């Protein structure tokens, strides 16, 4: 045993050590700062032309403004933003937006219609993630200059190259990051090798939003400060600090300690535990994105509609998954068009029925079932859904192995059409419009492998129905709202009759836990939750 005298540290030294290490007062969340914890794993770029995903939408909307916004409470309602009014003319082929006078960027430069037009041209020229939606409206780099132009400093005109529903285009301007107006002069000052400032804007911001980017350390920390020259009333918070945190239990501890104001991306058990605390509030925002089960209709096992019906209509325990796996992640939804839109229909009567499934499989020549695989992203709630599906498939005689992987691996296989069954999430689009949902999930204009329309889930699942495509296309071009609604409902009924290769099971819920002291925080269905109205009730 060591004699006490051999210890280099004496007992009397310990209080000094404790004082140095633990004596500091707890750094509580200041009243003029909002402290947010969330995963920034998918925040890869802040460039509105290149950024994708909810993480980017959540952050970038505070640096940039769009011409229009949609109401957070009713995502079908457009509201003025940079543009104070808008008009549709020429039989729905021309959109004219009038900008407010006196708009300025954070840099102090005036914001005009020329900047708005240039921002959209830039999206098309760069041809990155946000270009797809504009290309789907018929815009190209060749026709962009004529089709999107500033008639004067306050007037932006969009001539639509092909017939489409102008409301959908306006919705895109309001909800997509591609609709953000960037400071052309600031961006071009940082252009490298003709990249239109893409490399610089990846890690910087040049907008007119209520906040300016202070610092971004990827996958670590993002701080924003109140913009000094915001064109509306200045943001109520002085500063927002977003810390990259992926571990749900850590978020839970920090919220409980009062060291965080807002946390997102938490696991259901942690949210459930925090919901019982009086100082915290759980807020759920419905996204248009769907959790789904999809099969590969190009795979010999699933070409027969009876097999798809057995798997997707009778061997998914919709109610069980919704109540057991999906609380705080999603709400039961079995149609691609989410509730709340004029074309929405009541839930269909699909039910878990192993006996019916076995009959269908027997009719398809598979009385003993078959072996298959379920690809799934290895995180909640996907693994829970996949485990439930594995068990219910077994009751129908189908022996499924689960292949967990990263999102990249799982959706990569889907894009290559090399999967059998997948539990995934996607579709919907930011626009609250039936076309957006149907186009993302079931529309497939060309099912050939060579078409490689991998941006359509319909193509990825290898299912194409010419009549369904026709209904979706016709509805988009129908100016009369009632007739359009009827066509969208026909399309959904067609999905009931036929069995596509993708079956929605729930509408995604984005669950945030907030301290009750945080006021004015309204989660936005598109992901663009602007923090300009947020403030904190003083603790003092």
């Amino acid at each position, binding site marked *: 045993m*060591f*004699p006490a005298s*051999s210890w280099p540290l004496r007992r009397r030294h310990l209080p000094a050590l404790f004082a*140095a*290490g*633990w*004596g*500091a007062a707890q*750094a509580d*969340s*200041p009243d003029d*700062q909002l*402290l947010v*914890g969330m995963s920034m*794993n998918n925040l*890869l770029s802040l460039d509105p032309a*290149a950024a*994708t*995903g909810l993480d980017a939408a959540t952050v970038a909307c505070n640096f940039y403004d769009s011409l229009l916004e949609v109401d957070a409470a009713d995502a079908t309602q457009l509201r003025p933003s940079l543009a104070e009014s808008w008009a549709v003319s020429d039989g729905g082929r021309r959109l004219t937006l009038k900008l407010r006078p006196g708009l300025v960027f954070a840099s102090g430069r005036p914001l005009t219609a020329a900047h708005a037009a240039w921002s959209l041209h830039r999206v098309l020229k760069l*041809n*990155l*993630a946000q270009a*797809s939606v504009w*290309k789907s409206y018929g815009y190209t780099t060749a026709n962009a200059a004529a089709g999107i132009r500033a008639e004067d400093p306050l007037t932006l005109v969009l001539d639509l190259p092909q017939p489409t529903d102008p409301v959908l285009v306006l919705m895109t301007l309001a909800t997509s990051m591609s609709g953000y107006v960037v400071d052309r002069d600031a961006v071009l000052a940082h252009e490298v090798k003709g990249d239109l400032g893409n*490399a610089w804007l*990846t*890690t910087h911001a040049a907008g007119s939003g209520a906040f300016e980017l*202070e*610092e971004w*350390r*990827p*996958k*670590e*920390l993002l*701080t924003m400060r109140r913009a000094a020259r915001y064109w509306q009333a200045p943001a109520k918070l002085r500063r927002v*600090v977003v*810390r*990259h*945190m*992926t*571990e749900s*239990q*850590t978020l839970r*501890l*920090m919220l409980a*300690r009062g*060291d965080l104001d807002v946390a997102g991306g938490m696991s259901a058990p942690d949210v459930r535990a925090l919901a019982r605390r009086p100082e915290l509030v759980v807020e759920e925002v419905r996204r248009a994105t769907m959790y789904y089960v999809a099969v590969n209709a190009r795979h010999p096992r699933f070409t027969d509609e009876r097999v798809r019906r057995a798997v997707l209509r009778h061997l998914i325990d919709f109610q069980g998954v919704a109540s057991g796996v999906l609380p705080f992640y999603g709400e039961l939804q079995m149609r691609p068009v989410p509730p709340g839109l004029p074309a929405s229909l009541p839930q269909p009567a699909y039910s878990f029925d192993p006996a019916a499934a076995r009959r269908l499989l027997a009719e398809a020549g598979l009385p003993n079932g078959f072996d298959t695989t379920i690809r799934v992203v290895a995180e909640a709630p996907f693994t829970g859904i996949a485990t439930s599906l594995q068990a219910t498939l077994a009751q129908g005689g189908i022996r499924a192995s689960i292949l967990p*992987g*990263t999102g*990249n*691996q799982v*959706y*990569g*296989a889907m*894009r290559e059409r090399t999967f059998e069954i997948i539990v995934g999430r*996607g579709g919907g689009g930011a626009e609250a419009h039936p076309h957006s949902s149907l186009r993302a999930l079931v529309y497939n204009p060309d099912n050939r492998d060579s078409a*490689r*329309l*991998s*941006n359509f889930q319909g193509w990825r699942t290898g299912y194409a129905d010419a009549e369904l495509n026709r209904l979706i296309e016709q509805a988009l071009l129908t100016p009369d709202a009632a007739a359009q609604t009827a066509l969208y409902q026909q399309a959904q009924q067609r999905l009931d009759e036929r069995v596509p290769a993708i079956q929605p099971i729930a509408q995604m819920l984005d669950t945030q836990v907030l301290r009750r002291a945080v006021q004015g925080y309204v989660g936005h269905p598109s992901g663009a939750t602007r923090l300009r109205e947020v403030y904190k009730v003083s603790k003092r």
Partner: protein
Amino acid sequence: MKAKWIRGTTGAATALLGLLLLTFMIGRVMPLDPVLAIVGPDADRATYEQVYQQLGLDRPLWAQFGRYLGDLAQGDLGRSLLTGLPVTQDLARVLPATLELATLAILLGALLGVPLGVWAASHHKRWPDHVARVLGLLGHSTPIFWFGMMGLLVFYAWLGWAGGIGRIGLGFEGAIPRVTGLMLVDTLLAGDTAAFRSALRHLLLPACVLGLHSMAYLSRMTRSFMLAQLSQEYITTARVKGLSRRQVVWGHAFLNIRVQLLTILALAYGGLLEGAVLVETVFGWPGFGSYLTGSLLLGDMNAVMGSVLVIGLLFVALNLTADALYRVFDPRARS
């Protein structure tokens, strides 16, 4: 001496080149698609292919690797696909965070683990030995992730002693000028004692958790080395000559295990530098392990290659340092 130095340098360079080649090949055969991470799931074919070409993925593998080596020769590790920043800049940001954490952890681990191992060996098969073995077993077999969560629960959530998540309190974020990247040093250089205390409170708990794991390993190894020495005849001779227990253990047996201890210390330190990812995840520590893992999962091969190169260099540097110290502690190595 010169020939030995040339042999050593050539061997290290060959090992690093082999490491890079292996990593590059593994990265290319893994089913990961960096393009998808960049363009998102809804991008159309034209966009996908444009980015695919921009990344140079349409070129033959040998051409891609050759280009990487050419850039590397000029000190360019490329740009991370996922952060949009040069990999050197990313590494300069994340490496000091892990260096600070791992260094304190290995110090704690060595200061506790080595004496514990010596104590256990010198009380072989008595209660101190049993206590040390149980501690070693617990520390080594309990998942470090669990230790981290429990540490946070007790010392952060209940007692409020630890600082919590990240390297410093959120209120200090952005307020400390970055000089060395080592938060303790930078806060001192800034003369901000409150920030220093916050940084220390944030560092201690994750360092203790990592250190506990190292302590377990080091105590077990030290015990084993010491037992081997204590059964030697020179130890019996020393005892017969009337030396005290302390002199025998510390003045004779311990001196003879220093070289072995150096080797395992260097390996343990290297392991902490590259493999603290679980602790970094639990404590939201923006370090090297998280950076490497995140890059690997999303197929960001420039970042992965740069990180692997750094790991290789760290191990080479640790080995060289250990070699140099062998000569100090072992007279035979000097000749």
